[in-house]
């Protein structure tokens, strides 16, 4: 009996130590996995996107797009972005079939020639439509795309947050690392600091005005990206979210790309 109690005590102490001994890497990963679990199951959505690009002198330029996204459970999501403004690129569309690991598959539809062109998706760090968002900032979030390290807990924008670093595992990223603020209550990204290849702070994005959809999924209405080195910024607004529209794989192939309007 006594031996049993000693053994139990020892076991409890060890278990407690194991729990305490969760490394910052394990904790960072656990946060990302939990966030991913909460984001899973939305199915599909359509939404309208507006980007306002602003340079150092305050001059503004506007972009309008429509987005269709289909969740793929065992791989990256599929998305179709159709451009409406500026008018000279109206009807241009980008089909992106993302993968959890390896390069994504991308096709571009050029309306003047009615041509669908396979394009290289290696351009992760390139500017999206001349904005401060890079392609890698707006493609589907997957746990496998980064390794993680929890840094600390702190309050941000009035909410208790986990603050973690994440390091891209995919090739051609423009970043050495990102520092991400995720609120503890709902696991929403509130802020990301992006560090460039020289490990200097390059950009900061703030996700604002989160709304809850389907009673479960939180999406921000606005993403404000500021380049900390050039002073340029881009405000990306999401409007008219419609979930579970019954989109299928057939809405995300070369044929569907040809008939987008």
């Amino acid at each position, binding site marked *: 009996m006594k031996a049993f109690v000693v053994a139990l005590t020892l076991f409890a102490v060890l278990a407690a130590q194991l729990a305490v001994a969760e490394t910052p890497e394990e904790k960072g990963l656990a946060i990302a996995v939990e966030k991913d679990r909460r984001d899973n199951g939305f199915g599909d959505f359509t939404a309208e996107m507006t980007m306002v690009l602003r340079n150092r002198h305050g001059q503004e330029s506007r972009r309008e797009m429509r987005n269709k996204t289909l969740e793929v459970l065992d791989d990256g999501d599929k998305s179709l972005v159709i451009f409406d403004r500026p008018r000279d690129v109206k009807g241009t569309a980008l089909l992106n079939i993302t993968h959890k690991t390896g390069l994504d598959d991308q096709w571009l539809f050029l309306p003047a020639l*009615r041509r669908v062109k*396979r394009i290289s998706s290696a351009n992760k760090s390139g*500017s999206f439509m001349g904005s401060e968002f890079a392609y890698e900032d707006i493609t589907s979030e997957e746990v496998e795309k980064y390794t993680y390290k929890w840094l600390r807990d702190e309050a941000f924008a009035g909410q208790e947050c986990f603050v973690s670093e994440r390091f891209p595992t995919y090739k051609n990223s423009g970043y050495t690392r990102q520092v991400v603020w995720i609120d503890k209550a709902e696991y929403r990204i509130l802020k990301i600091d992006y560090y460039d290849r020289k490990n200097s702070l390059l950009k900061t994005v703030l996700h604002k005005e989160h709304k809850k959809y389907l009673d479960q999924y939180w999406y921000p209405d606005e993403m404000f990206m500021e380049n900390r080195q050039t002073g340029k910024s881009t405000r990306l607004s999401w409007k008219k979210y419609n979930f579970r529209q019954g989109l299928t794989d057939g809405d995300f192939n070369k*044929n569907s790309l040809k*008939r987008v309007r």
Partner: protein
Amino acid sequence: MKPILPILILILVLFSPALAHEFSGEISAEARLFVNDALQPGQKDRSSSLKFQGEYTHQFEGGSVVNFVPFFRQDSADSRRTHFDLREMNFVWVKDDFELRLGVGKVFWGVAEFQHLVDVINQTDLVENLDSEDKLGQPMVNLSLARDWGTVDLFLLPYFRERTFPGEGGRLRFGQVVDTDDPVFESGARQWRQDWAVRYSHVIGDWDFGLYHFMGTNRDPSFIQGTDDEGKPAIFPFYETINQTGLDVSLVQGSMLWKLEGLHRAGQGDRDYVAWTGGFEYTFFGILDSGVDLGVIGEWLYDDRGSFALTPFENDVGTGLRMAFNDVQSTEFLLGWTQDVESPARLVFVEFSRRLGDNFKLNVETRLFLSQPENDFLFSVRDDDLIQLEIEYHF
């Protein structure tokens, strides 16, 4: 029988819940300056023109689409370049397991950059630009079946569109003006020969490919020397009936795109022939830590008819540099050079474009025809080096 389709479309448009309908388009002003004096009487050294192209689209909730794309150009130098065309007037019926396209449409096939060899459905609107990227609307019925194992497209092409050729006042033409009033057809049905095409295409991983067969009136005419009604020497387009099989393949590997397109054609001239264009496009993304992408293009263009080929690209190497600045104005620059392997003939072109404000766009294009020997297909345009400026207004 004929009015049933438009009436059906009208009924559908009026009584269907519309998802979106919209009118957009562009108006553009173009100036062309030819560096050298004209070789042929009547040709002008400069021209100006205005172009209008509109697009009305109406999308139904099920994804079906109606669209209407009228085009018109008014040109100061060449009366034949002043022309109207219905680029598109389509009804696209989209169901889960098929897509049916009825009306006048536009279809692009191919992967290469220096020429569009296998692109066969639409006729080239050659008066628009020598690069043959402008196409006339093609009447068609197209049934598209997308399946797990690939996509099959069936085309019935009930009416043939003749190629446009520059007139008396236009540059970039043969020494003689092509007599487009008296085209010669191999088929007794002339323009009403019922042409067809079938194409299988698929994507497997990093590979995209398509294979088709076309049987019908050749979009690329041969030419017949003769005399016109007044007994003057003339050159007539000769549209033969051909069988053409075409293939296009692309492979993406990281920043590299490999491309190949080729065709086998029977029925034009005395013997069958093959032609192909193949090469690569490699992009250096974000060169020198800027946001600028630099693409390097290399292609080999081959036609086994050799010096009898009705194209300048019977054995040529094309090299190109493409710069995309990825700036707010979407500035782009393209330098291209095709060099004949067996002669000094070469073509050099530069294209530059940049958005001005939100609605305007500037395009600058220059084409140089260098060292064209007398037996070259482009000998007659050897002095037609040009600079073209265009301002587009998009609405």
